[in-house]
């Protein structure tokens, strides 16, 4: 049990690193990522589960960080847009989004990248319909989605043939 008036000590595994901090039980993962851990790549949109902007990965599954408490994430593997690529470079998805201009204002991009990564990790060559279905929970108010779908397809192609 946690007392609502007292902070609790949490240790979360974020982007491969264990981060310890104290927070109130009512803090969402979104608040903690941005305000306590300085990971502002994850954006806050509606904060009510109606836009998908704050999507991050928990155990490689897309999750809305605005609707999950930080304390509910202990013992789980959290990945944000900052940790999308395992190495120092960009993830193929990030490269493809940049190259094809699959972002305009860019606000929805971190969430879309996370959702797309989970898709490509379980389905190396998704069809256009499968990409559409997987991204159905991420709203973009600028691009009209076509470039986003094309960028996911390009990244999938490159991930299939990494040597080229």
């Amino acid at each position: 049990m946690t007392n609502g008036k007292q902070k609790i000590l949490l240790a979360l595994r974020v982007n491969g690193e264990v981060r310890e901090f104290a927070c109130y039980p009512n803090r969402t993962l979104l608040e903690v990522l941005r305000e306590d851990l300085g990971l502002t790549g994850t954006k806050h949109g509606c904060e009510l589960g109606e836009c998908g902007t704050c999507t991050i990965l928990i155990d490689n599954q897309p999750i809305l960080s605005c609707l999950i408490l930080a304390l509910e994430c202990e013992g789980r593997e959290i990945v944000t847009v900052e940790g999308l690529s395992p190495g120092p470079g960009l993830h193929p998805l990030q490269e493809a989004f940049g190259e094809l201009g699959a972002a305009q204002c860019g606000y929805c991009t971190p969430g879309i990248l996370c959702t797309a990564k989970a898709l490509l990790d379980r389905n190396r060559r998704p069809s256009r319909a499968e990409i559409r279905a997987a991204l159905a929970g991420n709203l973009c108010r600028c691009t009209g989605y076509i470039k986003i779908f094309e960028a996911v397809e390009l990244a999938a192609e490159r991930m299939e043939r990494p040597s080229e």
Partner: protein
Amino acid sequence: MMRLPKFVYHAPTSVDEAGRILAGEGTAARVVAGGTDLYPNMKRGHQLPPVLVSLRRIPKITGISGTPETGLRIGACTSLTQLGSHPAVKSGYAALASAVLSISTPILRNMGTIGGNLCLDTRCNYYNQNYEWRRAIHFCMKCDGSICWVAPSSKTCLAINSSDTAPLLAALGGRARLISTRGERELAIKDLYNLDGIDYLNKRPDEILTEILLPPAGGWIASYRKLRRRGSFDFPVLGVAAVLWKEPDGRIRDAKIYLNAVASAPLEAKEAETCLVGRKLDTETIREAARLAAEMAKPVDNADFGIAWRKRMARVFTERALNDLKE
């Protein structure tokens, strides 16, 4: 940033422990699983429970057991993604899988649970708004106020039940298991709901919905049709579930049709069911049953789209659901 109000958080690891906490806390405590319905409501000030009892750490109420031949037991904390993609559900209960996969978005289905979808708070245009919006209209009877803005003379709240699984599980004869320190009981899903937007659930505050029991597959065919503005995100503005049991010669032995999102509870279209029994599912029969089902739907102006069109769609979508079940 919209912040959650402060609360005491319990994370019991067994149903017994959760039941004891709920019994001790009385009506102050709220059960939470996926949080996708409760947390937005708390952020908007609809519900401000001082105590939350999370079911996330109770392994026993997550997962699916059984087979389509014997029937399924679905743990209430099974995520909608797990449920919709489970091989036994897809093979034996395809209409349920399709209803589940029509809920909200893939990301929210990773988080939301079947128990949460069944216990979903009722919805209304005058209720699902932020605190300042609601204060500007002096609130409504569902929360902080005394009047129903949809029908000011109404004595009961008319917020609608927006669960996509409830009408189908009711039509299939699904059952819910509820456990508290006072014992456990099984309730038909159709009896889980009240026609009251405030007191919409026949579940006491100290009871925990632990599992959903499905009858064996086979012998029946089912369909679910959902109306909404967008292909994802949106709650249903109308949901039609149809289940038919047929004789070998194709005549209908029994029929269940439930409409949702037209009232505070899933509504059984009894006259339409009666009209179907003993007949073959031809175009004329479907048309007549759909007309009878739509007569019962009395949507009020508290959701997306105009009410006259929503009522007309009750007929169209019942026709479509029944057409899905043609040979």
